[in-house]
């Protein structure tokens, strides 16, 4: 099936205008509370540092289950996202919960390695129990125009994932133009991505609304052509409730209600959860409380 017959061109100015329009939406009262809870349930709580240890991962996993026990009716986050060597630890901690374990793989974040090593990386994560694999595409190959290489690599890794869902990181900050982002999104989807994801979080700019919008439109076009849903994960740089709600407005008005669940949309973020809790607490109590009421793990 070839749903994309022509490369769709993207007008950056038009995209920015559309984003500005999303951002004029005023999300208040019950729709704000509902949106914030939804956003919280969509978070992939992330720690991707060289200094990660078992202890740090355990703390993160506990936080994932107990974001703020003093508030009633809060959902847990969607997943924790760690390096492959920490998947086993996370799995142990989250065994009896519905929280997923996502692992970055494929020589994250640069992706500059051989396919053999990337496949081994994926295998390590999956064998240890990762539910989701976040891979990076070979941006160098993409920018050289070797789209087939990029596509083949994704397809191979998809195969190695087995039952794990595959999120394909485009690292949009390195692709630079919206036309490139559209093209990379199409390649990733056609090669087998279950999710497409903006960024590693290691490059600036990470996720932006224009970039995410172009990716959402690609998902929409693919769905219209095939009836198959693809998930979306903006990652990096989404640190406040306000921004998260703007993303949800964009999601809602672009893809609609069916995507408004953590099965199809995720935020890759580490500090967003605490800001959401702060805002939800404010909605409940009418005032902001000290940040020290919220755990920092």
């Amino acid at each position, binding site marked *: 099936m070839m749903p994309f017959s022509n490369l769709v061109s993207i007008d950056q100015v038009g995209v920015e*205008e559309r984003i500005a329009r999303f951002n004029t939406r005023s999300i208040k009262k019950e729709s704000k509370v509902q949106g914030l809870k939804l956003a919280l349930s969509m978070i992939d709580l992330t720690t991707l540092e060289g200094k990660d240890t078992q202890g740090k991962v355990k703390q993160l996993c506990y936080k994932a289950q107990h974001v703020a026990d003093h508030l009633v009716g809060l959902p847990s986050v969607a997943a924790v996202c760690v390096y492959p060597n920490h998947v086993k630890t996370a799995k142990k901690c989250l065994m009896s919960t519905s929280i997923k374990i996502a692992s970055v793989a494929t020589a994250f974040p640069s992706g500059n390695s051989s396919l053999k090593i990337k496949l081994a990386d994926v295998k390590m994560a999956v064998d240890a129990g990762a539910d989701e694999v976040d891979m990076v595409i070979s941006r160098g190959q993409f920018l050289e125009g070797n789209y087939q*290489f990029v596509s083949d690599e994704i*397809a191979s890794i998809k195969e190695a994932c087995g039952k794990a869902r595959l999120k394909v990181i485009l690292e949009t900050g390195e692709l630079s133009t919206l036309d490139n982002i559209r093209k990379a999104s199409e390649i990733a989807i056609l090669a087998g991505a279950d999710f497409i994801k903006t960024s590693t979080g290691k490059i600036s700019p990470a996720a932006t609304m224009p970039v995410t919008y172009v990716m959402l439109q690609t998902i929409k076009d693919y769905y219209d052509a095939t009836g198959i849903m693809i998930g979306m994960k903006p990652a990096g740089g989404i640190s406040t409730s306000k921004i998260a709600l703007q993303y949800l407005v964009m999601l809602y008005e672009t893809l609609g209600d069916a995507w408004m669940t953590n099965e199809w949309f995720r935020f890759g973020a580490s500090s967003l959860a605490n800001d959401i809790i702060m805002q939800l607490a404010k909605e409940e109590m009418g005032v902001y409380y000290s940040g020290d009421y919220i755990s920092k793990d």
Partner: protein
Amino acid sequence: MTNSKSKSAKPMAQTVSAKANVKSKTVTTKTSSKIKLESRASWQYAAAPESVDHVSIKPQYDLFINGKFVKPNSKKYFDTYSPSSEKKLSEVAEANDKDIDLAVKSAKNAYDKTWSKLPAKERAKYIYRIARLMQERAREFAVIESMDGGKPIRESRDIDIPLACNHFFYYAGWADKLEYAFPNKKPQALGVAGQIIPWNFPLLMAAWKIAPALATGNTVVLKPAETTPLTALKLAEVIQESGLPEGVVNIVTGFGNAGAALVNHPLVNKIAFTGSTPVGKYIQKAIAGTNKKATLELGGKAAHIIFDDAPIDQAVEGIINGIFFNQGHVCCAGSRLFVQENIAELVIKKLKHRMDTLIVGDPLDKNTDIGAINSKEQIEKIKQYLTIGIKEGAEMYQSNCQIPSKGYFIRPTIFLHTSQSHRIVQEEIFGPVLAIQTFRTIEEVIEKANNIPYGLSAGVWTDKGSKIFNLTSQLRAGVIWANTYNKFDPASPFGGFKESGFGREGGIHGLAGYLKF
């Protein structure tokens, strides 16, 4: 051609395919379990109404003549309603011939005795002051504009009012630089300008008219439209506050007869009119043989052209913005859509999807995209055209949004399978109604775009710069937007070809209409 095993590094130009993903995808979908929020119903935006506490609307407004609010000679007042609630907002004076005479004479007097004698840079100071006072009260202006006219607060707040202020700022800058704008031509003021403005952008149109008239040293008698007089009367308050010499700007509310009296008054030197083509024709007849200068900005039926190499999602946004901006009450609205036939199906599918996300309702709600139709008369006219369109055999699609039970609301509407011979294609509807045609070649679309008595504006969407320049030189329209639509700026001239009028407003060109050389 590709599967997970193939290792060919052959670069592919535009598309990359991978087989057998469909299967794996359905499997993964089944294995992942949903974490559902207990209360997860469909997400709806809660009402976010703009506050009206800071707004003061008097129960009754008089005529603003010679710097004061005065009772009308007619002794009559008429009501102005909110088209969204159908509630009366205020009543305003109805000017008759005598009132118009008084207003024109006070303008003439102010011109002779004070305004024409003032150094140009002093004029500029007054215009700046008006702009700043308007800016300070921008929120109040925006709310009243939305209450009286029905347009969504998002537009009055973000577009109408800021643009209106910017027009005053812009023309204030020109007041003492006319010699530089028209070198060696000795520009001189005309005298009294009679200005008649429509109901679709009440304050913005007032600004378009008053600012250049004052900058060029003329005095003004302005008649706002009868359905939307409130922001012009608020502007009168601002003008009073600014200390502008008495009589330099007079604002008289009333009906068509007041407009006619203004047009026919012998002391008026210039008529600036924005409105319908029939009235424009009447004005031209009325001033024939007199010395009165005129600029007319009349109706339109813009061609909005989408080529197959356009950025489609942004083009769809442009179509939406082109026809549904201000409920389609825009003379330059992109009301005739031409889509290249090979992408028509895709564009229309996307257009329908986008239409379904538009929120129609309370103009004061910050989330409203499309507000109320301006008047009962107008909504009836639009409904009549819907009937005509259906009778003509066009396929109608309306967005499936909720609309309030009270007030004048209409669903965003498109007509498919229309042709040049349909009335809904030929006539200006002035509502949220789009007639869609397909085209095959560039020559065909140019011919059809120009095949209309109007020529105010047009829009072109293509990724090819050369195509844009080819079209802009061949389309008979005063304003042509490329890869965008409905963009306005005080520095950019605006005006029509053919029956869309003559003369330009905005920019340096906008000064010329108020000057003799």
